[in-house]
């Protein structure tokens, strides 16, 4: 196949596993939006006693790597306890797929985030979550680790693109070490807004680029 995808990716893309909806799901979550591009929905059936995922399905509005990652992540999560499934990383998903082109890793992150959001949804519904914590700079940095630097396919924290993060009265200020007219500046900006902008006590995210 003369495409930038491994055979495993193409196989999962062609014949995705665990695809569809669970009508009486115990938990579900949708990550992404039509506006930002890819979108993934994850549905869970959870055994209440053992907290084990007995069934899992996903739907994808996205590209090949999004569909393939949805397929592999649901395979990896099936049968695991919620705590075990929570620890599945996008790196594990990407490895299981035989690697993904760097520019495409953000699509796999979305599927992993979908799984985590569905687990969180279950925990919230079943009172397994403590009070909402105020957002901290550490929490923002943790979330920025899910924003991809498409140049290399690693997150923007690891690739040292995050020069500064500050937080004052609900306004987050993030300085990104890229010129404003960089090829991926807009993409990174939108990704940050999506990952940080929805925190319950964040009013505004100001993203600055260095020239």
């Amino acid at each position, binding site marked *: 196949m003369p*495409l930038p995808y491994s055979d495993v990716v*193409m196989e999962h*893309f*062609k014949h*995705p596993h665990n*695809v*569809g*909806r669970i009508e009486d799901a115990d938990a579900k979550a*949708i990550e992404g939006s*039509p*506006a*930002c*591009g*890819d*979108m*993934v*929905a994850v549905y869970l059936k959870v055994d209440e006693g053992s907290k084990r995922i007995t069934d899992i399905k996903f*739907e*994808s*509005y*996205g*590209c*090949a790597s*999004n*569909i393939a990652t949805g397929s592999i992540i649901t395979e990896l999560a099936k049968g695991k306890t919620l705590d075990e499934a929570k620890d599945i990383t996008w790196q594990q998903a990407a490895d299981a797929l035989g690697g993904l082109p760097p*520019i*495409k890793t*953000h*699509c796999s992150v979305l599927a992993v985030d979908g799984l985590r959001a569905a687990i969180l949804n279950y925990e919230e519904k079943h009172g397994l979550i403590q009070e909402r914590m105020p957002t901290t700079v550490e929490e923002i940095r943790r979330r920025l680790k899910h924003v991809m630097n*498409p140049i290399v396919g690693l997150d923007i924290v690891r690739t040292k693109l995050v020069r500064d993060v500050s937080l004052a009265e609900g306004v987050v200020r993030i300085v990104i070490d890229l010129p404003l*007219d960089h*090829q*991926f500046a*807009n*993409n990174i900006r939108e990704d940050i807004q999506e990952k940080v902008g929805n925190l319950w006590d964040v009013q505004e995210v100001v993203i600055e680029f260095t020239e």
Partner: protein
Amino acid sequence: MLNRLIYLDNAAATRLDERVLDAMKPYLFDTYAVATSQFGYSLGVDAKDALDAARASIAQRLGASAEELVFTSGSTESSNMALKGVALALGAKKGRHIITSKIEDFPVLYSARALEKQGFSVTYLDADSDGRVDPDQLARAITPQTILVSVQTANQEIGTLQDIAAIGKLCREREVLFHTDATHAFPRVALDVRQVPADLITLTAHLIHGPKGVGALYIRQGTPLTKWMDGGFQEFNLRGGEENIPGIIGFARAVELATPEETAHLQAMRDKLIARLLQTPHSRLNGHPTLRLPQNANISFRFVEGESILLHLDMRGFAVSTGSACFSRSLEASHVILGIGGDHERAHGSVRLTVGRFNTDQDVDRVTEALPDVIANLRAISPLGKEL
């Protein structure tokens, strides 16, 4: 692949026509001299004669004279040459304002951005929902400092034709130079410089079954343009570097072979593509319904993403294109679809099919069967559109 590939991405590249190759061959193996050698030996004279004949032949199709055509390495170079050449010639003398549109192709758009960095100001005209630029908005945007207007003849993605005759006339009245990128239009769309007052026109060979790496810039006699590619005195001392004679011969042959009869057939295939694909639920045409390139169909399908569509089509033996962000090197959704007021979702699910000489009515039948099937399969796994 079990079946023959059905290539429907003729706006990206086209298969070389054998007759073009046959015309080029003697200039690769026999008359391989460069035109500059005309003063040294007869092989150089032969090369120069062939170059002149090719130039005259392409110019004629444009209603231009031969000296008004400068050969380049393709449309990217031609558009760079037009914008930067005029900026160099008139920036200090007349002013530093350029007008273009938001939906231009990258060579024009990024040449304009590069000039902005050098202190030029650029106005980016809007396009309406069909992709048409409003000449009235252009009229209001022209200032005494405006040196150049660059508005494409036809759009690369959605195929919309601009009213370049009206735009050219307006520029003439206001004494502003007018460049038009005719990469996708020439010679499929009638374009005659005796009717359209364009000063600069970008042309290419590779989209009409000619070779890659050769194009031209039409430069109306007397247009101020500073040489940008320094080297020898080739191309009326406007572009240094030996001419790509085999490529230019191929270009001229390709223009000759692109007949109005053939274009009419392309248009018939296009109309069939559009009519059939729009029968898919939740689909819509991108670009103008009638004022569009004869070879271009562009349809958006809701609830599905373009790259996934392309890969499924590829497995079934079809090659098409999309404006989805997932397909672009910058991960940006098509600036054209966004520029005509579309949202990311519409760009995401857009599919461009462009026909060429080697497509048949059967190709149209097969893709209009396969594509709705792919859309239905992808919609079945999409979280969107289920309640509709």
